[in-house]
């Protein structure tokens, strides 16, 4: 009996297959649906990466400042802000009549509460970036609309931390933040309000009609969680979702399809080969320069990233305001051989591998096994370096096996990069202060001039001077190649072509634990429209 009923259901289902896909089209109306590969663990906006630059906070929240389409700071909850000449006091004038989604008034007390939560460091497992806020000496509320921060001392880039999402004091005060259900159904001040979260399926937000800025044009915003890429592509094709991120190599299957537009947006994410300066023979500058010239970067870009990105010579991309165009050098295996010969390498036994002092130039190149593109890079580098007489053996290791020690004492395929302030993490990557400090300065790079430039760059606030400083820095790093830079990748998206208002901008390295509901191409989704 049960089987008969089941069969009947199946039959009805089959009959209705065709009609369903037609019916979907006009129901979309004023909903934007974005399919992402990962589901967030919770909706805590401060749990994400240690960037400190909450430039793409979940749309439910907002911060004192926000990043605009050029990644420059703009006021958000603040009406205006001033910085004292010594750079130690920040005063924020807050917007008036801002309401929390539950109708309560937003005030300077909420700002103080949020920053103190982090400064205090008590909730580090909930707010892992807490330590970055230790340099705040004092947070004072001058009146309901004015907050003043005094910082102990810090880099110019600290002001990017003021995009920290503000949390509601009236709800969270006194709660166990590790167990509160606030992170399941949060209250914020942002353009969208939390509506519903079907775990494992989708998160639904609705437009906040009382938003202090321009209210979102699209009424409903849905994030759909679909781990498999071909399933996401299929949802986009059927018109069920409006935007997805894709592997650059999947572009071919979507290009030219009616109703779908491809966006290839730049990212600051660079890939390179870490060449630890403490390891033979990478202490030789000629050797590092040779490796950087022997790698066919264009080919890697074309085959592994489907041409979506640009060749890297240093840590900044062409689009970056500090980029120095003088640092480029061509792919040149002949020059590489010459440099290696200058460094004293020759293939005396004719086995195709260079030697020096009786030692073969051969090494293991580690790559993290979970990153397909880094594996492909490792294999390409093996081939390229073989042609100049260097023997490379790619070795896969999981991130759980790659200890800090292993990371900084082996040639390894690395990736990093920040689209934010030029100080952001370049300080920790290249300053000799950070040799042996955790994951920082993996090349154990030590150059007194670079150290000085890095210190200067984070103290000076004048933009032109900084541009000059970081320009010099790039020239030295590009010459030294402590890491052999290879490419910057682009992030590629496929979007329903009826969606307008999209503003692509430079993206960061990696994806946080929020799985992308807080950024990517949809960083300004509140401004999107759908024809």
């Amino acid at each position, binding site marked *: 009996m049960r*089987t008969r009923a*089941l069969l009947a*259901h*199946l039959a*009805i*289902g*089959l009959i*209705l*297959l065709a009609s*369903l*896909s037609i019916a*979907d089209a006009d*129901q979309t109306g004023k*909903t934007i*649906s974005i399919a992402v590969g990962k*589901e967030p*663990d*919770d909706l805590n906006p401060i749990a*994400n*990466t*240690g*960037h400190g630059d909450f430039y793409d906070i979940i749309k439910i929240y907002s911060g004192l400042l926000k990043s605009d389409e050029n990644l420059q700071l703009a006021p958000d909850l603040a009406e205006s802000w001033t910085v004292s000449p010594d750079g130690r006091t920040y005063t924020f004038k807050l917007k008036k009549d801002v309401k929390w989604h539950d109708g309560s008034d937003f005030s300077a007390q909420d700002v103080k509460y949020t920053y103190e939560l982090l400064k205090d*460091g008590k909730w*580090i*497992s909930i707010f*892992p*970036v*807490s*330590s970055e806020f230790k340099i705040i000496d004092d947070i004072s509320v001058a009146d309901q609309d004015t907050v003043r921060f005094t910082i102990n001392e810090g880099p110019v880039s600290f002001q990017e931390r003021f995009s920290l999402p503000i949390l509601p004091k009236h709800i969270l005060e006194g709660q166990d933040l*590790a*167990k*509160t*259900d606030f992170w*399941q159904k949060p209250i914020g001040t942002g353009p969208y309000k939390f509506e519903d979260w*079907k*775990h*494992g*399926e*989708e998160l639904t937000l609705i437009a906040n009609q009382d938003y202090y800025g321009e209210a979102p044009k699209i009424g409903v915003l*849905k994030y*759909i*969680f679909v781990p*498999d890429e*071909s*399933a996401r*592509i*299929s*949802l986009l*094709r*059927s018109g*069920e979702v409006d935007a997805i991120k894709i592997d650059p190599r999947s572009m071919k299957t979507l290009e030219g399809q009616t109703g779908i537009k491809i966006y290839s947006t730049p990212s600051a994410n660079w890939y390179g080969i870490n060449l630890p300066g403490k390891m033979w023979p990478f202490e030789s500058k000629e050797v590092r320069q040779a490796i950087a010239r022997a790698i066919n970067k264009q080919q890697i870009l074309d085959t592994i990233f489907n041409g979506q990105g640009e060749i890297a010579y240093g840590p900044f991309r062409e689009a970056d305001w500090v980029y120095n165009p003088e640092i480029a050098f061509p792919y040149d295996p002949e020059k590489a051989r010459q440099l290696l010969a200058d460094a004293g390498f020759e293939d005396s036994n004719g086995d195709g591998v260079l030697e020096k002092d009786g030692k073969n130039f051969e090494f293991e190149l580690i790559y993290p096994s979970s990153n397909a593109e880094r594996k492909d890079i490792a294999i390409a580098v093996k081939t390229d370096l073989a042609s100049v007489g260097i023997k490379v053996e790619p070795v896969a290791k999981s*991130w*759980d096996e790659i200890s800090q020690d292993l990371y900084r004492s082996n040639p390894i395929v690395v990736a990093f990069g920040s689209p934010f302030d030029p100080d952001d*993490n370049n300080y920790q990557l290249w300053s000799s202060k950070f040799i042996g400090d*955790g*994951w920082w300065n993996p090349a154990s790079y030590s150059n007194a001039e670079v150290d000085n430039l890095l210190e200067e760059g984070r103290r000076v606030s004048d933009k032109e001077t900084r541009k000059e400083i970081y320009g010099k820095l790039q020239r030295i790093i590009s010459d030294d190649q402590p890491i052999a830079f290879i490419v910057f990748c682009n992030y590629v998206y496929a979007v329903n072509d009826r969606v307008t208002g999209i503003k692509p901008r430079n993206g960061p*390295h*990696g994806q*946080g*634990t929020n799985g992308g509901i807080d950024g990517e191409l949809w960083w300004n989704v509140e401004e999107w429209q759908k024809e």
Partner: protein
Amino acid sequence: MDRSLASYALRRVLQIPPLLLGISLLAFFIFYLSPVNPTIAYLGLITVQKMTPEDLAKVEEQLGLDKPVQVRYLVWLERIVQGDWGYSHIKKRPVLDVILERFPATLLLTVTGYSMSALLGVLLGLLSAIKAGSRIDVALNGLNYVIYSTPTFLVALLAMLVFAVWLGWLPSSRMVSVNTPTSDWPLLLDRIHHLILPASVLAISHMAVFYTYIRSSLLEAMQEDYILTARAKGLQESRVILRHAFRNSLLPLITQIGLSLPLLIGGSVVVESIFAWPGIGKLTYDAALRADYMLLMGLVLFTSLLVILGNLLADIAYVLADPRVKYG
């Protein structure tokens, strides 16, 4: 007989707690041996790379990951005995809430898939046995081996490629459309529409067991004396097979259903992950990747309990169905 069955059932029920204790002990220490670093899994690599060792130690302490494994196990055991399933530090929610919320989706998928699988397997097995040695039998047998040796994930990806991506007949993922119909009938149809592909994949990849069982036990039954008797009585061959042989060959199937429950739960992990089905299979996969030990332990306990109870019911059903079997 009822009396002995009752005492048998009671004995089996009493065996459950020590069994669960053993499973939980084993599971806890296997998770402990997993190479996944729970702090990296919790915070994400990029965050971890930017934190100082002192801060990381503090996070570990706050999450309770700094304690020795045996202490953590005993704490877990003490709580579970009191009915507290613990707290998922990744999801920041009580473990039992998370599991119960996801279970109905898995139940729907596995019950449908399993019924289809049993039905298909039995029908094809019957056909094969009747036509034993014929081309159909050889073909079905061959097909069966191919399907049995194809991993479920491959079947799932191929099915998605053909029916969702190329032909566009069926949805590629999810339980309902993104723009979910609001009225009852369209909603039901929408759900069935989404159920077909994952349930069929589950059905096809588990069909082999049923097929093989029915085929061999039917062939065996055909050799029995009572079949000879039935034929001698002049019964039609179809009646001989369906009434006499087939009914008897169904008995071992009851045990088989109980035994393949774990397989089915394992299969749903793969199918749910590929089709974005929001059940406990996908949940288990995520929990393992993220080293969410409390949730994993909850899932192990929950599914073990299901499997043990399933087996118990199958055994009791067997006794009820076959008057020759006695437990005492």
